[in-house]
């Protein structure tokens, strides 16, 4: 069922807009539409909107930086203190950020210097030795092969001193050499992939100094982290409240953008559930001190009326399928009831096994307890599991075993024709129910004439086929007369469909039969599931018979096999039952495309 809506226009002086908005936001009953009276101007946001949105951005950024979740159920009117506090917090965080960056840089440079000092230490060179000399040039860094370098240096000059330290793939060297040969030595070093350590910058440093600098940097980082943590603690509650409050207030401040206004007045257009209209008007009157004017307008065909589904609790779970597909339009029939009745039946027809039904019922019950947020979905599956047990009783099936002689047989060893007929019969009933619904829908939205042509044509077509069938079987009107009569009826149906649905209706004629035959899957999916179960049972019973260690294997096959078969069965039956509704059934009456009722103030 769809909630009945009223189209409402609210007019009032701008002076009461703020309290009216507060009330509307809290009530959450008005779905605002932007289209209103032609020629009037669009409303302007409150002056506070800019300030509020800037504060909201700052507050959200702060929450993200501190890792505080935004969600809050509480809110209060934002005041100057709140805004000032957010500003102060943002500033504090900026300072903390700068301090973190500085400490990071200090730590990085200190550890770099430590590394260099350490390298020098290993080369047994005092940092203070690294000063400019008049006759000496020094090089400190890494080369690819120090032994080779030494050989080559000896060819140039004997006046050099080379300390080398093997360090993984590269050698760290300290080379003091005669300045006169500097150019040749540099060329040599380039060939050896020399990478300078840039040791000059640590010449003035000592190891303890560098260590101290590093400790200081780490201490600074730690203190910043502590301050951040204490900020997080002290704002963990108030910041989400501030965000929520600002969010609400901003929504109110920007709401006039969706209204219209004149110099003195504001106009709000929207839809309110009819049942809640009187109480809503009363509350708004109170909030505005009786200075509002209400007009309840007629809903015409151009209006895009929002829809809110309203079903009893058990049926409500099945709204899941409509949310997944598309919501009905305002004047359409809500097919949730249809789904509630026929979805479990089709599902149960396919899975149909008392054992499987009981196991899945328990499984979905436990899953529902575990994941209450998906309770609607599991409700659907629990209904379906009950239907599975019911059909299992009809088929006489218990984990693939035939317990007693079934009402309708589903074991491939016996005659399967009754099952085929049952499946096609289910299809005929289901699709005709869809056509009847379509007839009512069409009558509601386009009148009885269109309904007769567009949907009634299908019934005439079916009648023609029945006559043809009876004639061919020789039950009634045998021979040419019957065929002629049938052809005439089918022709009439084709003309009606052409008038009602256009050329598409005529093209769709064969689709009606393929749709009905599509219900053969009810049998096909079921048979494959039974087939698998039989294989599992046969295999394990043979193993049981051989006894000994084979019994353990048999139990394993039985357990794993049936679990797998249930999993495949649930998935297959669910998807195919859903498909039969979406494709075969909904194409007979359901168009959808409705928009959700989304009242002002709702999340």
């Amino acid at each position, binding site marked *: 069922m769809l909630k009945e809506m009223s189209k409402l226009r609210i007019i009032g002086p701008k002076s009461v807009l703020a309290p009216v908005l507060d009330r509307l936001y809290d009530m959450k009953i008005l779905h605002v539409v932007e289209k209103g009276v032609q020629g009037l101007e669009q409303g302007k946001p409150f002056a506070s909107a800019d300030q509020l949105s800037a504060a909201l951005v700052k507050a959200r950024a702060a929450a993200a930086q501190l890792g505080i979740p935004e969600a809050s159920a509480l809110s209060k009117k934002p005041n100057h203190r709140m805004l000032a506090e957010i500003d102060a917090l943002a500033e504090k965080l900026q300072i903390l950020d700068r301090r973190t960056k500085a400490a990071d840089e200090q730590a990085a440079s200190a550890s770099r210097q430590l590394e260099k000092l350490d390298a020098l230490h290993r080369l047994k060179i005092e940092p203070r030795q690294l000063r400019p000399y008049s006759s000496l040039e020094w090089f400190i860094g890494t080369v690819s092969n120090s032994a080779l370098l030494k050989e080559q240096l000896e060819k140039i000059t004997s006046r050099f001193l080379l300390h080398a330290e093997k360090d993984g793939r590269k050698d760290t060297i300290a080379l003091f050499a005669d300045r006169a040969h500097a150019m040749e030595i540099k060329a040599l070093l380039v060939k050896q992939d020399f990478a300078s350590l840039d040791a000059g910058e640590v010449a003035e440093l000592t190891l303890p100094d560098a260590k101290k600098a590093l400790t200081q940097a780490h201490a600074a980082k730690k203190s910043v982290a502590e301050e951040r943590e204490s900020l997080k603690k002290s704002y963990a509650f108030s910041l989400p409240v501030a965000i929520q409050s600002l969010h609400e207030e901003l929504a109110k401040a920007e709401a006039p953008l969706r209204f219209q206004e004149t110099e003195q007045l504001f106009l709000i257009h929207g839809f309110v559930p009819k049942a809640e209209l009187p109480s809503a008007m009363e509350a708004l009157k109170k909030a505005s001190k009786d200075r509002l004017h209400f007009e309840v307008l007629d809903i015409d065909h151009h209006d895009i009326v929002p829809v809110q589904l309203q079903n009893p609790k058990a049926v409500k779970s099945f709204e899941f399928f409509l949310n997944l*597909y598309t919501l009905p339009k305002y004047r359409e029939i809500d097919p949730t009831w249809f789904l509630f009745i026929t979805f479990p039946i089709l599902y149960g027809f396919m899975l149909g096994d008392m054992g499987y039904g009981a196991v899945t019922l328990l499984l979905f019950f436990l899953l529902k307890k575990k994941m209450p947020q998906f309770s609607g979905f599991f409700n659907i599956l629990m209904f379906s599991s009950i239907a599975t047990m019911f059909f299992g009783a009809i088929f006489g099936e218990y984990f693939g075993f035939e317990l007693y002689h079934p009402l309708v047989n589903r074991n491939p060893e016996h005659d399967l024709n009754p099952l085929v007929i049952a499946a096609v019969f289910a299809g005929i009933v289901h699709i005709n129910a869809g056509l009847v619904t379509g007839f009512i829908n069409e009558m509601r939205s386009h009148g009885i004439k269109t309904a007769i042509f567009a949907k009634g044509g299908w019934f005439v077509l079916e009648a023609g086929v029945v006559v043809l069938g009876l004639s061919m079987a020789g039950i009634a009107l045998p021979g040419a007369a019957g065929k002629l009569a049938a052809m005439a009826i089918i022709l009439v149906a084709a003309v009606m469909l052409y008038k009602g649905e256009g050329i598409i209706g005529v093209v769709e004629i064969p689709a009606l039969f393929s749709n009905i035959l599509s219900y053969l899957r009810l049998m096909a999916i079921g048979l494959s599931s039974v087939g698998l179960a039989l294989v599992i049972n046969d295999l394990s019973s043979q193993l049981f018979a051989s006894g000994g260690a084979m019994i353990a294997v048999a139990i394993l096959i039985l357990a794993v096999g049936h679990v797998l078969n249930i999993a495949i069965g649930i998935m297959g039956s669910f998807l*195919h039952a859903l498909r039969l509704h979406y494709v075969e059934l909904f194409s007979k009456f359901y168009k959808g495309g409705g928009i959700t009722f989304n009242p002002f103030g709702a999340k």
Partner: protein
Amino acid sequence: MIAFSAALAIAGSAIAAAWAEKAIGSAAIGAMAEKEELFGKGLILTVIPETIVIFGFAIAFFILGLAK
């Protein structure tokens, strides 16, 4: 011969259905990546060719019926 015909009916229609679903499925996933609400419609479009294999199954079933 009859068994072979039945197998052929199933195999051929299954391959055809799979082929059709392959193309539709990837297109549907693509559309869903752009707009998540299309899941319902994508699912419907994807499963439409399944009817082919159901028909194949029905034919195979009737062919097997000839054997009796």
